[in-house]
């Protein structure tokens, strides 16, 4: 690997690396706008001009590969003058409407102005060029042509990643604008990514506009639960509310991107229908009770069935959106606290859901299908349970996240499971299945959980709790641990990391893994 010197620091970098990436290895930031590691290199913004010894003029770091013995200066007088000059040029026609711009706080124009420029404007305000503002270009993306610095990240994304070319540059010179072709709005399942990669406030998300100042947002690393791809994301939240999902780089899983369906899935995770208290069916009505009451009630019912009809009169259905830890905790609970081997999974996608595509989207909308399989939960088993209900062997069902009524349709659910005596539903939301339940327990949605998902490729990725679940809702493993303890007095692990540790020792697929070492990109399941 070539060795070079950047700002006096010796760096050893792969020969394929450009100077921006190589400098990152030495913790040196070379400012840039148009360069994006996931896209081609246009070299148009000129922000990354650096001085290279023996080169006659400044070179753009983005389009310069490392070379043995290269000596690079990013803070020399010449380089600093160029950085300052480029910022001055970028800002002369910029509206500087930061107070009403959603990008403020995460805007590279603001950041670099403070870092590299800081000179007063030498351009008279009334003479700025005017262009289109607040243009709805489709797919929930708003365009402000005046804020645009024409770095062409968005056009390159649509040209190179989705290969659909909805956006282009029109006009020339300082009248250049990004725009859609006349009458052809953006209609793209990945459009939100252009908002992410826009370094300024030119492209903003309709749903996010004017909702929240970005400096109030906290970021929690997680994984999108929208499908079995499991795109790495950051959850941006404030006071227990999610304001947006942003993709997080994970090579081989989602690279830099995510789909709009996943991006806009968070309102469904914090809907009005969220459950906040344990409920029990009383005179055809669900009424609130405490966790203590609920757990004691469920434990005594389970004990009754166990005694009268045997352990196999009780079954569990685990939804394939459950975390690895939840699935493992239930499996263990069924085995040790009840002794039942009736455990099925529910893996379903709503009708009309998007199918597999060539980029990220998977037809299977269940975030942890592969994880459940790796834990050894059978891919379906619902037919077997239905048969056991029909034969009268199965009396009680614990539905974990599984919205059976919605998945099967009410008629089919009643036909198969209508004869059940008792149903305990652990759910995030008050859904139709809850209406059919004898007991309902509120559990945390995945943004409120520590734990992990295993994507369809077998990548185990960590999720982190952004904030606590609403009301009296608790983590699913905690609820299971409480029920287990009420049944047999055994203390079960109820924190994600301890459950994971137990899982790693019990389940061969998770051998050698631990929650703490999954890292930002996750780790693959053990082979075999």
């Amino acid at each position, binding site marked *: 690997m070539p060795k070079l010197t950047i700002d006096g620091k010796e760096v050893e970098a792969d020969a394929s690396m450009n100077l921006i990436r190589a400098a990152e290895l030495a913790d040196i930031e070379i400012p840039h706008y148009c360069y994006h590691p996931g896209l081609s*290199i*246009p*070299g*148009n*913004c*000129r*922000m990354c*001009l650096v001085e290279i010894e023996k080169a006659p*003029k*400044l070179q*753009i770091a983005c*389009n310069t590969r490392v070379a043995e013995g290269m000596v690079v200066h990013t803070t020399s007088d010449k380089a600093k*003058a*160029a950085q300052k*000059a*480029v910022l*001055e*040029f*970028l800002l*002369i*026609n910029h509206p500087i409407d930061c107070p009403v711009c959603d990008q403020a706080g995460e805007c590279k124009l603001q950041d670099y102005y403070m870092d590299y420029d800081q000179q007063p404007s*030498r*351009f008279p305000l009334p*003479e700025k*060029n005017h262009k289109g503002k607040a243009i709805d270009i489709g797919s929930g993306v708003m365009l402000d042509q005046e804020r645009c*610095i*024409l770095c062409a990240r968005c056009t390159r994304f649509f040209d190179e990643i989705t290969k659909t070319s909805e956006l*282009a*540059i029109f*006009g*020339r*010179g*300082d*009248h*250049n604008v990004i725009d859609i072709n006349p009458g052809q709005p953006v209609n793209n399942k990945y459009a939100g990514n252009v908002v992410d990669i826009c370094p300024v406030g030119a492209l903003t998300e309709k749903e996010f506009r004017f909702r929240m100042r970005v400096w109030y947002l906290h970021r929690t690393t997680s994984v999108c639960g929208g499908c079995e791809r499991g795109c790495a994301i950051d959850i941006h939240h404030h006071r227990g509310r999610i304001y947006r999902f942003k993709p997080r780089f994970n090579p081989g899983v989602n690279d830099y991107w995510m789909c709009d369906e996943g991006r806009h899935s968070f309102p469904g995770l914090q809907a009005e229908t969220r459950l906040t208290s344990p409920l029990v069916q009383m005179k055809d009505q669900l009424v609130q009770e405490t966790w203590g009451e609920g757990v004691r009630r469920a434990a005594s019912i389970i004990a009754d069935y166990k005694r009268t009809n045997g352990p196999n009169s009780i079954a569990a259905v685990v939804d394939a959106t459950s975390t690895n830890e939840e699935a493992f905790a239930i499996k263990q609970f069924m085995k040790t606290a009840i002794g039942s081997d009736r455990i099925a999974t529910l893996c379903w996608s709503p009708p009309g859901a998007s199918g597999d595509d060539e980029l990220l989207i998977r037809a299977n909308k269940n975030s942890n299908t592969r994880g459940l399989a790796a834990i050894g939960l059978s891919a379906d088993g619902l037919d077997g349970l239905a048969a056991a209900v029909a034969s009268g062997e199965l009396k009680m069902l614990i539905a974990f996240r599984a919205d059976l009524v919605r998945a099967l349709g009410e008629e089919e659910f009643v036909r198969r499971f209508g004869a059940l005596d008792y149903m305990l539903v652990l759910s995030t939301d008050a859904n139709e299945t809850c209406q059919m339940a004898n007991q309902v327990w509120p559990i945390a949605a995945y943004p409120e959980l520590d734990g992990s998902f295993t994507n369809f490729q077998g990548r185990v990725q960590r999720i982190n709790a952004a904030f606590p679940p609403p009301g009296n809702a608790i983590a699913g493993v905690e609820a299971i641990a409480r029920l287990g303890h009420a049944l047999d007095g055994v203390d079960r692990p109820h924190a994600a990391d301890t459950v994971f540790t137990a899982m790693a020792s019990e389940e061969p697929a998770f051998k050698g893994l631990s929650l703490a070492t999954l890292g930002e990109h996750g780790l693959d399941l053990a082979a075999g």
Partner: protein
Amino acid sequence: MERILTRWLDIPDLRKFEVYVGNGGYKALRKALFEMKPEEIVNEVKNSNLRGRGGAAFPTGVKWSFIPKDSKKPVYLCCNADESEPGTFANRYELEFDPHCIIEGIVIACLAVGAHTAYTYLRGEFTVQKRIFDAAVAEAYANNYLGKNILGSGFDLDIFTHRGAGAYICGEETGLLESLEGKRAYPRNRPPFPAIQGAFGCPTVVNNIETLSNVPHIINRGADWYKSIGPEKSPGPKLFCLSGHINKPGLYELPMGFPLKDLIYDVGGGILDGKALKGVIPGGSSFPIFTADEAVKVNMDFDSVRAAGSLMGTAGVMVMNEDTCMVDALKTIAHFYHHESCGQCTPCREGCGWIEKLLTDLEAGRGKIEDLKIMYDAAANMEGNTICVLADSLSMPVKSFVPKYRDEFEAHVKLGRCPFKTTSAQQAA
């Protein structure tokens, strides 16, 4: 002096195939086809010291030698006829009056670099020229000087002509390639250079028309003959485009190294209306201006003009007399580059417009003295910091006009109006 590039002045209807052949046309092609190996052609052109006439003055033979010998991809030749530098009008005459010489040059160049397809990229406005050139191409095809198995040599070549849509940037060689490929003419980053990755990702030579017109003569008469015309390092016959406040503006063929003084006062018949000379831009509007004192000392060849502080570019010689408002002249130049900047790189996109705005204010007497520094800074910050040299093309005039005619710029500020417009009534007019 013998006319070489402008033989059409002596030979009526030279554009016609029979006339061209009757006057020794396509002899060089026969020689190249049947008596020379490709590398011999390259070497002959290399030895002739022919330098590109498109403005950059790069040695043509050297450029040809950059084409990989064992390329698995096809090799292309692009003939740059997107002549749009203000003050330049040589290519249009060549296309109109001597198209077969261009075709002959193209075939020889293709033979030298192993290209079997050549594209001629014509400026959008060249409608008549395209018609004439296309007719000549058709004649060449009909007589097997183009097409399959040219003159039985086994060498195939097709020429396609392509007209641009009226953008100066398409004359920049990589902008031309992008435009040729049907894209927006955004110049490309180099490396890779066109010789490695040019048109459609294949090795490509881009040559100016005037450069290619020289090639048949070099093949016919040899490198030594060619080098004997003008200075050895920058030799050959040259087309000078003389315009501005001059008695006899027009296109003149003269040997390289011809004194600018003689070009203006002898060939050009002196300054219009007997006025005094104020300044000369020697190479098209992109380049630094010479004051009258500087101009009379310069010889017109690439190296001499460079040594004197400007560039010969396309030899678009623009003469300005003592009545010229230099602020207005620079404003006109700035307007052009502002209009023609493709807008790809930040400094050029924003800087050209900024400079034009400053000059508009200065010329109208609304400027401030500090605007001169701002304008100079903006020009300096543009120069050398962009993908192509369009930014430099405005930067260089600004950086030469402002110091050389500073008193005029300051006079505009002090008077609050243009001193060349004497009354406010005239100003309004």
